[in-house]
């Protein structure tokens, strides 16, 4: 009988034994762009550790930060950028050091069939194109501004949404023509939207760190989850959802 990982190191075990002495439940506060992938990770983590429950709270990263600092019961925090993670650490809410678990890159999102014929970043400024963005405080919003700046494109978004998922929703509904989100978001939305690639020269790589939150009741479960995300199983799951590997 293999010993179950109990706050152990980065997992070498590719399939954990079904019996596990881990029990408890954790709340994982994760950036909106991690919705699909983390839901999948949550399911397989629970299958590996049946005595454990995982609840997810997905929202724009700054929103999650505000919630944690106001006392929301988070055990794990997965951020869409290092800036917000840095703030949380500096304010003393983290336990242990954060680790990068995934990377992402930007892609333009449009309606299926690309009716407005968007081919490059410059097309976002075309008249007749309704472009929306995330608010600058949201990591994706910040990166969008960087990408546009590097391509020398000047365009004013019609709305500053609170998360990438809000942007995708508006594209799906047909209210807006284009936005800039992560590759993973476009993959998760499936046939409801279409992506237009941004060349590497203008693209921005987002790094996603994850950390355990201080004062969590089930720190062993929290750390086990983080280890799972960083394990090869976790990493390959993330890759199927379109994330770039952590290194």
């Amino acid at each position, binding site marked *: 009988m293999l010993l179950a990982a109990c706050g152990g190191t980065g997992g070498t075990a590719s399939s954990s034994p079904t019996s596990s002495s881990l029990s408890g439940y954790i709340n994982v506060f994760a950036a909106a762009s991690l919705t699909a992938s983390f839901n999948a990770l949550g399911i397989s983590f629970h299958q590996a550790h049946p005595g454990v429950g995982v609840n997810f709270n997905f929202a724009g990263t700054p929103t999650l930060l505000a919630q944690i600092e106001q006392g929301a019961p988070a055990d794990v925090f997965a951020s869409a950028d290092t800036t917000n993670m840095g703030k949380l650490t500096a304010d003393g809410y983290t336990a242990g050091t954060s680790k990068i678990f995934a990377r992402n890159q930007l892609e333009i999102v449009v309606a299926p069939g690309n009716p407005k014929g968007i081919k490059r970043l410059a097309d976002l400024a075309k008249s007749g194109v*309704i472009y929306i963005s995330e608010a600058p405080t949201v990591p994706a919003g910040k990166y969008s501004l960087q990408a546009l700046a590097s391509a020398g494109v000047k365009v004013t978004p019609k709305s500053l949404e609170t998360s990438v998922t809000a942007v995708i929703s508006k594209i799906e509904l047909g209210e807006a023509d284009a936005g800039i989100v992560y590759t993973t978001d476009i993959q998760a939305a499936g046939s409801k939207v279409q992506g237009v690639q941004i060349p590497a020269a203008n693209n921005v790589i987002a790094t996603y760190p994850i950390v355990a939150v201080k004062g969590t009741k089930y720190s062993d479960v929290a750390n086990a989850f983080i280890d799972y995300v960083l394990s090869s199983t976790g990493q390959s799951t993330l890759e199927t959802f379109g994330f770039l590997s952590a290194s």
Partner: protein
Amino acid sequence: MRRERVPIVVLVPAAIGAAFFILPLLGLIVRSPWGDAFTALTAPETVEALKLSLLASLSATAVGLVLGVPLAWMYARVEFPGRDWLRALTTLPMVLPPVVGGIALLLAFGRRGLFGSWLDSTFGITLPFTTAGVVMAETFVAMPFLILTVEAGLRSMDRRYEEAARALGASRWRVFTRVTLPLIGPSLFAGAVLCWARALGEFGATITFAGNFPGVTQTMPLAVYLLLETNQEASFILSLVLLLISLVVLVGLRDRWLGSA
């Protein structure tokens, strides 16, 4: 004058209920950074959001009056098939989650909406992401308050005054403007104020239907929501401002809620 003792069974829950509302207000007052209050309040984004909020909420109230008073009149005075259903429908936004209202507005007036797509293809007009869209969202959630109050006022007024006016030769329009409206004045006023206060505080429908952009669609509640992430303490101050405005309005109304003169 002898005052009767309030029974404990009433006093204790009432006190708890009161505390439920008083404590958040106290929390805001205590945690607000009064030193930075001035800078927070005079920051250009704040001023812009406040101006937009006032403009949009007053416009929503105006629309509410123009469309709501005739509706209230129909509900109070005219028997027509389906009246109860229509009244329920136009009161629905009061109990609906505002975001749901926003989604419904998108499906009707958005670019691909039932009516919105026609607007777009015929006139090139789109309503989301515009200030007009904000006014629409606010009107949607706030107008039911006005309709309800005015209808109650119309039902409780003595209609014989209208007969007296007619017997004196007043046309129906004159009866309405010179007799009916003045007699329901208090209800009309209360309804308009409630409508305005609700419009001022609207968030969910606004951000869903109209979006969020400073100067165009970023009203005070939206600004506060976003400030919560960037400058928490500034958001406290602005929340307090919004809360105090609403409080003053409601205190001013006192007991002139639903009812007649």
